[in-house]
């Protein structure tokens, strides 16, 4: 294994060698800084062993932003390579590795942790709960995600990245075509983080169904919680399909089975089928919580109740069910009959109806509202047209005969970036800006944020609009270079400029965060946006037990109602005296469990079964330890609560 890695690094592209050096230096830098500032103990006690959903949410957010940076650098490398015809900045192998890791990272290690961040930060607060249903499991989920992402990110310096696309179809992903460790990294890291995702799905379904504050019936629940519920339902039913697909592919590669190799009766098409049974619902997993965020933001900043609450709920639920019946639209050209293709084409288009309902509801909510153009609102506003165009091109793709033209062309790239960036990422940024003061106790600087906003938005259109045209001109995806005669040069160049503009936009976000940590407007009220839901009734940042007293809810937009009543002079019923609060203990087991999975995964990547076994034993030991542990949590005394509430 060591030889393999050394050999790989010696022959690797200079860019990879440089990033390997950079990675080692960064690591040393972090270790040095932590030691110098004596922060190890703090890091361990406050963050690594935490089971507090708010801190877990923040850790998801940080990881997601770091991964967005990595994925973004990948994107810029690709766009640089494609800027001119006949470029030789990247060779074909390196290009393959970059687009494969870019896609995988953006979907699994950016979009997923971003939605998990939002869920963790907002859901328990919105439903008036002290925590999620299973705080320990929540920490396990995070560390599985973390170590999955770490394993994936090691690939480019230790042995080679996956190079068969983010879908990793066999036969390309089989040993016969990709003999190195790359695809093993893909299989194992997705498998590990996937376990965490399923656990999060279960955790939040139970939290939402079982832990709402008294009086909060389902129909009084904030829409964001509904959207998380919808998304989690999709998670728990879709991820098992990925687990199966990856397990079979992994067995083909590591143990020499033949599930997807043509030899001995395997069938690669079955992988494609299973992959998209998960893959399509996956994009809804990412977009559904965004619908919830949009609803919260639009109603808060229009100072109006959301229009058509019930239809919003119905459409969320409908989308989560329909999303299971559309997966074939990703391989209309595989050879299935017209019956199959028509069914899945119609089902795909059907998703457009509930989505349209939501868009109109947002528009009606804004209509005659007193709109405030804050950063969360700006990102929400730009989401709407962008997502509408993405949806429209999606319907074009969903038309099976037309898809024979569009399939694997740049049109597809433009479409899914429009929905994933213009949809998921814009919406999640809106959510980040919206809940930022709640998380950290200060607002992000609006001016820098507007610069980021405009660079990102203009860059987005400059980058992806030409790609629709390139698709029509015959440019296919996953090409690493093209001759000048194709005439694709100009549009590609424009597109690359757009990508760099977005890169600048991202830098503005970084600067904005750094600047605001020092100079950002402090949020002393806990309710900087004049919010409507319960999280805004708490101080920012929220004490770790969330609510000193669990509120009683009578209305939708509970906090808004409370504020209105107070204005009318109706005082809230006198509160009962404070009682001690029971909270779960911190634990280092989730971290070690993730670490054990990581060791097992790393061993399997290189077919080192001894290392793998050590890791797996570690996993079992952690589970046994947890089962036998007598951990009943701890109590926070009334005095402590009073102290916290007063400060």
């Amino acid at each position: 294994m060591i030889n393999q890695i050394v050999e790989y690094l010696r022959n690797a592209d200079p860019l990879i060698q440089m990033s390997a050096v950079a990675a080692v230096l960064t690591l040393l830098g972090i270790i040095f800084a932590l030691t110098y500032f004596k922060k190890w103990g703090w890091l361990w006690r406050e963050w690594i062993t935490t089971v507090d959903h708010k801190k877990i949410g923040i850790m998801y957010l940080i990881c997601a932003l770091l991964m967005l940076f990595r994925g973004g650098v990948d994107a810029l490398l690709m766009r640089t390579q494609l800027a001119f015809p006949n470029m030789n900045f990247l060779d074909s192998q390196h290009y393959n590795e970059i687009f494969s890791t870019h896609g995988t990272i953006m979907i699994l290690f950016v979009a997923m942790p971003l939605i998990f961040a939002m869920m963790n930060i907002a859901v328990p607060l919105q439903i008036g709960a002290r925590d999620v249903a299973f705080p320990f499991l929540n920490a396990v989920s995070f560390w599985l995600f973390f170590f999955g992402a770490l394993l994936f990110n090691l690939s480019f310096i230790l042995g080679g990245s996956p190079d068969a696309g983010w879908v990793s179809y066999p036969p390309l992903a089989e040993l016969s075509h990709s003999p190195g460790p790359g695809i093993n990294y893909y299989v194992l890291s997705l498998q590990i983080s996937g376990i965490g995702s399923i656990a999060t799905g279960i955790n939040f379904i139970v939290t939402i169904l079982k832990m709402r504050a008294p009086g909060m019936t389902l129909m009084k629940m904030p829409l964001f919680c509904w959207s998380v519920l919808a998304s989690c339902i999709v998670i728990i039913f879709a991820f098992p399909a990925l687990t199966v697909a990856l397990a079979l592919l992994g067995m083909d590669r590591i143990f020499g089975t033949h599930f997807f190799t043509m030899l001995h009766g395997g069938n690669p098409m079955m992988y494609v089928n299973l992959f998209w049974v998960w893959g399509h619902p996956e994009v809804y997993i990412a977009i559904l919580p965004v619908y919830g965020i949009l609803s919260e933001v639009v109603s808060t900043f229009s100072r109006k109740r959301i229009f058509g609450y019930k239809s919003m709920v119905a459409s969320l639920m409908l989308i989560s069910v329909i999303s299971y019946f559309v997966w074939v639209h990703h391989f209309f050209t595989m050879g299935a009959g017209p019956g199959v293709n028509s069914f899945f084409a119609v089902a795909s288009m059907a998703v457009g109806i509930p989505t349209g309902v939501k868009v109109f509801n947002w528009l009606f909510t804004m209509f005659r509202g007193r709109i405030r153009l804050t950063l969360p609102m700006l990102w929400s506003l730009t989401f709407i047209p962008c997502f509408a165009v993405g949806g429209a091109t999606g319907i074009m793709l969903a038309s099976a005969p037309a898809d024979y033209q569009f399939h694997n062309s740049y049109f597809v790239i433009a479409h899914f970036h429009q929905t994933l960036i213009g949809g998921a990422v814009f919406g999640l940024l809106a959510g980040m800006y919206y809940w930022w003061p709640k998380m950290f106790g200060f607002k992000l600087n609006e001016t820098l944020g507007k610069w980021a906003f405009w660079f990102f938005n203009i860059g987005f259109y400059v980058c992806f609009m030409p790609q629709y045209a390139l698709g029509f001109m015959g440019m296919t995806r996953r090409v690493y270079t093209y001759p000048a005669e194709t005439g694709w040069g100009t549009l590609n160049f424009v597109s690359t400029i757009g990508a760099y503009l977005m890169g600048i936009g991202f830098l503005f976000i970084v600067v904005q965060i750094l600047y605001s940590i020092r100079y950002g407007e402090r949020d002393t009220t806990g309710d900087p946006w004049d919010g409507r839901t319960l999280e805004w009734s708490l101080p920012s940042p929220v004490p770790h037990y969330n609510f000193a007293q669990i509120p009683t809810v009578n209305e939708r937009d509970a906090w808004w109602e409370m504020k209105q009543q107070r204005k009318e002079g109706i005082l809230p019923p006198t509160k009962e005296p404070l009682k001690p609060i029971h909270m779960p203990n911190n634990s280092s087991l989730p971290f070690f469990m993730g670490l054990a999975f990581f060791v097992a995964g790393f061993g399997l990547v290189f077919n080192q079964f001894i290392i793998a076994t050590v890791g797996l034993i570690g996993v079992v030991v952690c589970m046994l330890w947890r089962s036998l542990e007598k951990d009943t949590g701890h109590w926070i005394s009334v005095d402590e609560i009073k102290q916290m509430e007063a400060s």
Partner: protein
Amino acid sequence: MMNKEHLSKKTFPWAHVIGYVGSIVLTVLALWFTVKAPLSQGSIITILLALAILQILIQLIFFMHITESRGPAYHSIAIALGFLFTFAVVAGSLWVMTFNSQVQ
């Protein structure tokens, strides 16, 4: 958060053990029938289906506590959805993959 009832119930989790052993036995049986049993393909598939249904029941009864309930019957909806999606995936995949019989 743990509630008190949960803590006070300290009996040995027999249901989990039975369920665990049961599901392993069923899995091994399924493997044995596919790999070793001298039967026609049709009968193997029937047996596998029967084993799969038993497996689902074991999971629901011994692990997912389908027989216990308190509060609203959310779990019935969840199970109904589960069956719907399982059906969609299994029947859908069979349907989608039928073209293979013509291609190969």
